[in-house]
């Protein structure tokens, strides 16, 4: 089912082969293989409970924090197996950042929220350097103009949309290669959502972005590659335009046209 090597002419950023994920006895992901392009936004769509978020969380090993979760198969970042023994999870997560469903800024100042990652990874040698990183990250996340005069205010005092952009800025601050977004707009209103979608478009090309979304319109707007998940299996993967206008699989077509989900 995998036609990805012909899809993109450049080397994939992440390659997953025959990945299955178990929560205890229950199989949440069943034999998924996919290549993630470094240049494009890849969207995972599918009905609730289809495993798209679970699969996303295997890509930076956030499933490690869930008791009883077990991953089979191979996932490689730039060709290096991320589940091999001796893999440094801390390094992996610095390279593969994540933005969550609900904005989760730390209860610290805006500045401290952004400086958190660079500090723990020792990215800044001086205070000036740290300030530069904070400014650059906030600018890239399109939040700088709104918060530059109140960097010492608490991050939790911002509006929901601003909080989510703060979380994106926080992820960008450690210079990741991949950004995983787990339904980043599901807790936001349409205006804030539009702002985040614009931002995702601006970030494209600099990072490999994978976004899980339950909104097909959103997938159609922001992504160039789309994978459709159903009942723990990846049903179809291809160019977003193909998936939405000319799906190969009956189930994909039914989902796209709103027959279920």
């Amino acid at each position, binding site marked *: 089912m995998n036609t990805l090597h012909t899809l993109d002419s450049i080397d994939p950023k992440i390659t997953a082969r025959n990945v299955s994920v178990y929560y205890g006895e229950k199989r949440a992901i069943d034999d998924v293989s996919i290549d993630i392009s470094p240049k494009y936004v890849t969207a995972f769509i599918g009905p609730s409970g289809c495993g798209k978020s679970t699969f996303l969380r295997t890509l930076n090993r*956030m499933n490690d924090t869930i008791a009883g979760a077990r991953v089979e198969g191979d996932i490689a970042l730039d060709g290096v197996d991320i589940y091999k023994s001796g893999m440094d*999870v801390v390094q992996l*997560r610095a390279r593969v950042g994540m933005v969550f469903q609900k904005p*989760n*800024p730390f209860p*610290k100042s805006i500045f401290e929220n952004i400086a*958190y*990652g660079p500090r*723990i*990874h020792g990215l800044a040698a001086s205070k000036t350097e740290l300030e530069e990183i904070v400014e650059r990250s906030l600018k890239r996340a399109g939040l700088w103009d709104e918060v530059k005069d109140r960097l010492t205010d608490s991050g939790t005092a911002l509006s929901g949309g601003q909080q989510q952009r703060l979380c994106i800025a926080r992820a960008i601050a450690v210079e990741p290669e991949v950004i995983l977004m787990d339904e980043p707009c599901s807790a936001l209103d349409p205006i804030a959502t539009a702002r985040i979608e614009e931002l995702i478009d601006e970030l494209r090309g600099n990072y490999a972005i994978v976004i899980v979304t339950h909104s097909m319109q959103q997938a159609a707007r922001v992504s160039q590659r789309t994978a459709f998940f159903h009942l723990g299996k990846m049903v179809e993967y291809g160019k977003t335009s193909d998936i939405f206008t000319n799906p190969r699989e009956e189930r994909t077509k039914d989902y796209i046209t709103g027959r279920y989900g």
Partner: protein
Amino acid sequence: MSPAIPILLALALGLIGWLAARSRAWAMRKAVRAEGGELHSLPNYHGWYVGLWAVVPALAFAAVWSSLSPNLVLQQVLSDPAAQGLPAFGIQRDAILAEAQALAGGGGATGFQKGSAALVEPFRAAMHTYAVIGLIVTLVLGFAGGAFAYLRLRPHFTARTRVERAVMVGLLAASLVAILTTFGILASLLFETARFFSVVSPVDFLFGTHWGPDPMSEPSSVSGDRYGAVPLFWGTIFIGAIIAMAVAIPLGLMSAIFLTQYATPLLRKWMKPLLEILAGVPTVVYGYFAALTVAPLVRDFGHMIGVASASSESALAAGLVMGIMIIPFVSSMADDSIAAVPQAMRDGSLAMGATKSETIKKVLIPAALPGIVAGVMLAVSRAIGETMIVVMAAGATARLTANPFESMTTVTFQIVAMLTGEGSFDHPATLSAFALGMVLFLVTLALNFIALRVVKHFREAYE
């Protein structure tokens, strides 16, 4: 006649009312349903409504009566001709009356006091009269209440709403008991404290540095310079807030972190209750652990490191054991507030590539800090009010020193010493216990108040 009889009869009336009202409501329901209607309330609520009306007024009267009737009995006995021969006042008169009453009630008293035998019969008669009056009124009230309620039952009668309101009032009364008790304690403390301060000036008491009340001295010659409580305050703070907290905060916090972040669910299931058992050990047991085991070790250690003044009763011994005792207070509050930090916060930090300990140190602890601080404050107020451990292990000498190997005394210890001492009750030395209690009460009240405020703030921040 036993006072239990009116109560049991009132309850029996209530049961009868409950059954009667319920069956009447069932009958009404049948009739109303035949016409396609429905009762406002379920038959059970009608039952409870009538039952409550039968029981509550009757029991309320029985309670009031049981506190009034002894006085009425006494009045009647004193008006009896046999009482004319009693001494006019004083201890002997009271003793004779008490004995006659005990004999009349069938108690095991012997006819030791002269003249008591003559009063037994009047007492018996009076007690019988008032018991019968009480019983009759109780029954009449129970019956009248029940009947009144029973006659009000109609298909559309709002029995449910009324029973719910009665439940609410009952719950309110229960919570008022605790609150009113607090005010009662405060009022009694205030009264005695005012008596103490009429002899010793508050300035001498609060700022004086010499504590040495002599309960045997002439009350009129008491001067404020023996009532300086600063050494007691210092002893209390040194033992309860400094030494004990130096033990309890790090150990409690670290065990909370281990239990919430590192322990497997199974281990946590076993360790948390075991840790909380510490809170259930009687403080007197901690007291002799401190006095018999820890204090000698502390003294020997003091001698070993060259502190010649190390004594077998020391602030350090008492403080260490007190610290162990309050670990559960700190750890369970810290545990709760760390566990209350949203999982999203933890995930956010881990997803940035932070390690577990970085996440705990930089995100979880700061976010849980208000809860932790509140726990510490509750623990401090518990520690400074603790008595048994300091009585057994800290000593009785009021001393202003920072040497933890010396014996020291605390506010609570001195309250015990002054109240159980040999002075008469209205001697300033005895009254000083109330002033000390007042200070302790105010300080713990303030700490609890601050802790509650902090916790409230914390809750608001995470909604």
